């Protein structure tokens, strides 16, 4: 397979890697760029576990060609925390027991971050809509929705 050089921003770090033509972004992120936070679930663009933000918009990295992100910015769960300080979403997920087996959590966090970046004060229905592309088999979704609303409130400086 021909390799192609690309460069992009990965969570504030500039990355330059050779990617296989036709290789899925998730494989290059995990094996080549060394970011293991996007999770590979169904590998067919359905479960949402691999969700990353490309220029702020959530994408399924398992069905995105790596070569298409040249020059773009990618955000993953690996860049959410600021040093020792967890992102408000991560903190709310922990406090609200929004993860059980944790496999969907990474994708849920990125879907939620895209929502809150665009709409800091979402309604419950908007949260449901935002995570409707992400499957969770453990929690029954309710604690995840609650955690995203709690994080939104905290980021807005409101009491939960």
């Amino acid at each position: 397979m021909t390799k192609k050089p690309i460069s992009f921003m990965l969570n504030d770090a500039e990355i330059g890697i050779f990617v296989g033509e036709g290789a899925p972004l998730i494989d290059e992120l995990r094996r080549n760029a060394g970011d293991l936070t996007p999770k590979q679930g169904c590998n067919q663009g359905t479960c949402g576990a691999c969700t990353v933000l490309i220029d702020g918009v959530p994408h399924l990295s398992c069905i995105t060609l790596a070569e298409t992100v040249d020059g773009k910015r990618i955000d993953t769960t690996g860049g959410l925390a600021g040093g020792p300080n967890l992102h408000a979403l991560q903190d709310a997920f922990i406090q609200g027991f929004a993860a059980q087996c944790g496999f969907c959590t990474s994708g849920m966090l990125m879907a939620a971050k895209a929502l809150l970046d665009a709409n800091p004060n979402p309604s419950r229905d908007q949260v449901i809509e935002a995570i409707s592309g992400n499957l969770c088999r453990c929690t029954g979704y309710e604690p995840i929705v609650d955690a995203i609303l709690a994080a939104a409130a905290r980021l807005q400086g409101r009491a939960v």
Partner: protein
Amino acid sequence: MTIHKGRGFACINYPIGMNLGGDPSQALVHSTPDGKFMVALSSIDLGQGMKSVTRQIASETLGVPVEDVYVDTADSDTGPHCMGSFASRGTHRVGNAVIRAAAEARKQMMEAAAEELEVNATDLDTDGAGNIHVKGAPSKSITIAETAIAAQFKQGRTLSGRGIFLIPPSEADPETGDMTPVTCFAHAALVVDLEVDDETGEVTVNHINSAYEVGRALNPKLVEQQLIGGAWMGVSHALYETTEPNYPARDHGPEDFNTYLQPGPGQIVPHDIAVLERPAEDAPYGGKGPGEMCANPVLPAVANAIYNAVGVRCDYLPITPEKVLRGIREQGGARPQAVRA
């Protein structure tokens, strides 16, 4: 078109584990040189909280802070034997094994500390904050880290423990068939309120009320979360999940994650739970664990509620709109049962 309301009830007595051929689990505990403790298990955490609850149990038994306990469930090749994470057995079987292993490690830890403090081990106690002190004289103390260092580098001993919990095989009496297949039961009762559309056959679950008796809730938030998530699985199993087509052609049947139907975040059913704590005698700190029982009673309660709403008795799952509609047509229309207030 009419929307019919229905209410259904189910209750459950659920066995913890199984012992037809014997039901063992093992645990090994050892300290690192800096006084942290590793718990080695082959019991897998598949999202139910096995790691969290065994960590709490080991911490409580050892008398060390929970932050200083690590649970490793990585590999059934290298770990001690476990029958597995199934049959709702984890908390009860593995928890009991962890208590035994941790108790043996604690005994060695106290003996090592006694040697350092030049006192009798029976005069020592832990404070749960990382120190071992002489009972009644908290100032005469040694940290667990110092104890572990002394044990390994000076005394030449390990702070470790082995634990196994075995429910022995229960043979059936050849004459009567009498046997004791389980030692411990958990219990629950659950009420489902739903609506059935008699034109489309669609069922919408509106509310679940449940009461669970799971022994002592060793981690109440985890118990609550497992019950909420498990009830969601129950609703999913009762109404949605099938690889069979709903319509004659296989083309329209679900073949993969894309089309396998499950309720999403937009179909969350509000669920009020009462957890009753009746610590079980032979359970680790009284905890039996919710396990599979958190999904099971939802299914018959949904089936009963649909019968209550439209008089259709579905006896195989999932109860798809097609089955409901066929049932309604066969009996010549919806036949709501007793009216509910």
